[in-house]
């Protein structure tokens, strides 16, 4: 497993480099890096409620990140997690608001199923176009993501708007308290069991089932997979469906958990951060869990930081960008080039 070890080492190195570059930018801008660092540790672990908040932000990142892992493993670049997350949350909201008198467990379950179906639909359209017509999924999932954000904006500003709301940004009505699986901290035994169960299921699916193996084969070499009699189209559709389902579920957990209502453009970065999480997790389930906790901690810390330093919150977006910018660098490509063997043309 030296190859695996090398991958871990290079990923960790690239993440560290991204952090150091960001720290350098902060230092040049006149922030004391030590203060910021201790603020991050306080805001993600040691301060009151910080650990809870870390877990609260880990949950959506983990769910969407696992969806990204599934897609990327099979070689499909589903980068529309944000939109799938939004339509999932919207569907769950419609269920909860439309069936206020329903029995609590049933309504929550229906909300989650609705969210899963919506996320699936949002992802299956690009997926279908991809496997049927070869339409590039990077572009279509991105477009669907923007459309999903506009759907949320439309619903929260229009039909589902809370008429008594006074805030600057449009928000929906709150769902009844009984329909929430957590309080506003976003963490509860139910939520943790749900998310942990999903992670274990995804692990089982990827590592212990025929479908998971097939997916990986398709991702590695679709042509060979086809020759071996694998129905690449079916695998592709299944991958997109699962990937979207997880993002949709994340939306429902957000609504039934810490959110309780939807605000235009809430958690705007979570879809992209989940891609970063999956890549830093090296597209493995447990790696993604670790990365999700790590980035969840950063998200939690950035909300805490104003207490200790006046660091502007967009610094976190900058950091995420830096990690994404660098994390896919391939040292092998560099070495090959150094060795003068770069016969295969590379991008750039």
């Amino acid at each position, binding site marked *: 497993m030296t190859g695996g070890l090398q991958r871990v080492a290079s990923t960790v190195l690239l993440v560290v480099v991204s952090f150091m570059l960001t720290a350098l930018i902060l230092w040049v801008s006149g922030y004391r890096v030590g203060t910021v660092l201790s603020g991050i540790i306080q805001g993600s672990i040691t301060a009151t409620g910080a650990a809870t908040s870390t877990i609260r932000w880990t949950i959506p990142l983990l769910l969407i990140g696992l969806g990204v892992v599934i897609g990327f493993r099979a070689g499909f670049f589903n980068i529309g997690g944000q939109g799938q997350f939004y339509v999932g949350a919207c569907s769950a909201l419609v269920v909860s608001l439309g069936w206020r008198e329903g029995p609590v467990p049933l309504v929550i379950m229906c909300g989650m199923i609705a969210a899963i179906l919506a996320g699936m639909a949002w992802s299956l359209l690009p997926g279908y176009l991809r496997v049927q017509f070869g339409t590039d999924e990077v572009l279509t999932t991105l477009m669907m993501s*923007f459309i999903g954000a*506009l759907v949320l904006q*439309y619903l929260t500003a229009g039909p589902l708007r809370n008429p008594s709301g006074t805030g600057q940004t449009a928000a929906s009505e709150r769902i009844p308290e009984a329909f929430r699986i957590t309080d506003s901290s976003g963490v509860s035994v139910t939520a943790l069991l749900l998310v942990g169960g999903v992670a274990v299921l995804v692990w089982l699916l990827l590592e212990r089932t025929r479908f998971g193996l097939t997916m990986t084969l398709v991702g590695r070499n679709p042509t060979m997979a086809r020759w071996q009699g694998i129905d690449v189209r079916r695998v592709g559709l299944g991958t997109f469906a699962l990937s979207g389902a997880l993002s949709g579920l994340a939306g429902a957990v957000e609504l039934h958990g810490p959110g309780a209502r939807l605000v235009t453009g809430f958690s705007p970065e979570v879809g992209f951060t989940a*891609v970063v999480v999956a890549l830093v997790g090296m597209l493995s389930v447990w790696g993604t869990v670790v990365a999700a906790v790590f980035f969840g901690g950063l998200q939690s810390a950035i909300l805490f930081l104003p207490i200790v330093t006046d660091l*502007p919150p*967009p610094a976190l977006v*900058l950091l995420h960008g830096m990690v994404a*910018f660098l994390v896919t*660098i391939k040292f092998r490509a560099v070495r090959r080039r150094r060795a003068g063997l770069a016969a295969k043309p590379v991008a*750039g």
Partner: protein
Amino acid sequence: MEQVLATTLRSAAPLVLVAMAGVFAFRAGIFHLGLEGLMISGAFTTVAIGDATGSVGLGILAAIGVCMTLSAVYWWVIGPLGANVIIAGLGLTSIGLGGTAFALGAIFDIRGSMFTDVVLPRPVRGATSGPGVIISEHSILVWITPLIVLVAWIVLRRSRFGLRLAAVGEYPFAARSAGVNPSIVRLQALLISGALCALGGAELSVGTLRNFTENMTNGRGFIAFVAVIFGAWHPIGAALAGLFFGFADAIGIQSQINITERVPREFVLMIPFVLTIFAVWLGGLWRRRTLEAEAGYAELREPDY
């Protein structure tokens, strides 16, 4: 109606400029999702330097410098270092969006918007009614934009560089055989692309408005990219697509137009995205093109884990 057309031109100009940037990158086989990040960096630098020096020209020059530098780094990361084009591009976008908002707070101690006195010159002004409104009050960059489109077209179609770019994008192996270094050509394309993004950002911040606002590009970089695809990566096509998206934006803005009373604004704003999905799907061309540009795109298909 005149007002809508005038707004269309103003909304379209930054889109068209950035779409030209996307065309150059796309022709080199690079699926450039960092346009948004470059555009906002351009907008910010123009306002920051323009305000500090009191000269809009210096501001734009600085913006071009910043965006070209970022483009060169992007080239280095996706080329020699072999990073994934899509992911690094999205990373560049986040660096731009996060970095400019961070700098606004860190350097100027401002959250939200920064206002400035510098503004691009407006050659024709003063019309308040009639057809004159359509051409009045536009910044110089709006006037130059068609010229840039024309030049881009001529460069891509007629120049030696344009031919090399086409070769590199479509068949790098052949380009290499002919003694062209694809890597260098891609760098040149990305540098041009960076400069155009800077102009697009400048038009956004000091053309129509006089401020820089966090996240003011608001997805325009992506819409410009969409215009590239929609316009079949041809400069004229992309410019027309940009113009059309500008029009969609304008009727979204103009609330007095009856249509928005029946159709919510969000649905008008969805038009570019929905159309693009259709365009990409119907134009089976796209697939062929990605196959052609596979070299600049190959890493994508082999997620290496």
